[in-house]
């Protein structure tokens, strides 16, 4: 029931994206950025375990997300609940490829997998093509805008490039997802948050020391 509602809303948001038509941030004045500086926010996952809280459409569940960089440089993400029941096992390649090793039947829907893939790709920061970036400034914040399929990925820093203020996934007109990564320790963020703007869906990750 819950997943079918999620699927409906994801489909609705996809339809909205398709019919939207120009970028919001491109109206802002252009600026010169520092792409190398932006790279320092790209998380350097070797292996990290996160306490995970998911809230969707008034429902809450929790679990553990293990993120591991494999010897072939792919990133694996395995999400299970606290008693060991596995929900999914995904692989992300640096070339943008995505593989599903396993997913429970209730989540095995194209729209659900696509949403989760895009959300996690945003925080992995692998798809930042320097030849296509445009940089803009507004209210003292630098907006690095990368075209991404039918939409955009935004990485927003303060004017000095010292802090990553937030990340966004956007259609041509509207922000669809906002995300944060904070308190980096040895290149790995301690806190990660993903929040959808078009429907009630948030993911909160807090790193667990093992």
């Amino acid at each position, binding site marked *: 029931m819950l997943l079918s509602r999620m699927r409906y809303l994801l489909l609705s948001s996809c339809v909205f994206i398709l019919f939207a038509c120009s970028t919001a941030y491109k109206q802002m004045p252009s600026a010169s950025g520092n792409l190398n500086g932006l790279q320092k926010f790209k998380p350097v996952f070797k*292996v990290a*375990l996160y*306490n995970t*809280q998911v809230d969707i459409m008034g429902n809450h569940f929790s679990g553990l997300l293990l993120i591991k960089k494999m010897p072939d440089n792919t990133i694996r993400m395995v999400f299970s609940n606290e*008693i*060991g*029941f596995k929900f999914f*096992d995904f692989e992300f390649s640096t070339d943008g490829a995505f593989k599903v090793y396993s997913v429970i039947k209730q989540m095995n829907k194209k729209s659900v997998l696509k949403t989760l893939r895009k959300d996690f790709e945003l925080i992995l920061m692998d798809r930042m093509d320097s030849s296509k970036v445009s940089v803009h400034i507004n209210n003292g914040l630098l907006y690095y805008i990368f075209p991404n399929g039918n939409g955009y990925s935004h990485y927003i820093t303060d004017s000095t490039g010292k802090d990553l203020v937030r990340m966004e996934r956007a259609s041509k007109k509207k922000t669809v997802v906002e995300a944060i990564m904070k308190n980096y320790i040895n290149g790995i963020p301690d806190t990660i948050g993903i929040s959808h703007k078009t429907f009630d869906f948030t993911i909160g990750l807090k790193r*667990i020391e*093992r």
Partner: protein
Amino acid sequence: MHKLILLLLILATRVNLQAQYPGYSVVADLSKFKTEFSTAAQKTTAIKSDFIQEKNLSMLSEKIISKGKFWFKNESRVRMEYSQPFQYLMIINKDKVFVKDGQKENKISTKSNKLFQQINKIMIDCMQGTTLSNPDFKTRVFENKTTSMVELSPVTKGLKDLFRSINVIIDKKDFTLTSIDMLELSGDNTHIRFTNKELNATIPDALFIIK
């Protein structure tokens, strides 16, 4: 000739079963085991123990180890409290499940959630000695010197998609649960081992209250 083939088949089956679970052999007298298990479980009205849970992610060569405390009280009440490396509480009280993670609390009725109902039943069956009569599984029983192992192979669709088998290890001394091993189709598994067991400990009912 036919006798020889039959003998070879019996031997092959026996070798195959022993190869599957090294050190274990098939329990010959299943009805005796059932009776002993059930009788011993009826004498155990409460169990208090520690537990260590190990989630093995075989393809990632990773283990997630967590620890906590476990309580069981007749009838059909279980409390599992994870304390390391995260805080998580699960209470099963008959057909109700309560979970608390961090600050959030959640009540689940197993009547409306088939999977929870099945997992709930496994837990309770293990404690009450009724594991062998669960219709959701085909069961085989093996033994070594100190333990018996009940292999539960799912026969119902939902569980079949999730687990290859759930193996319950029972201490031969007192027929109490030593560990549960949940084997997934992917080759991953979750192993929960119970230590420092106190049988028929005094456990307040309040520990199982779901508000």
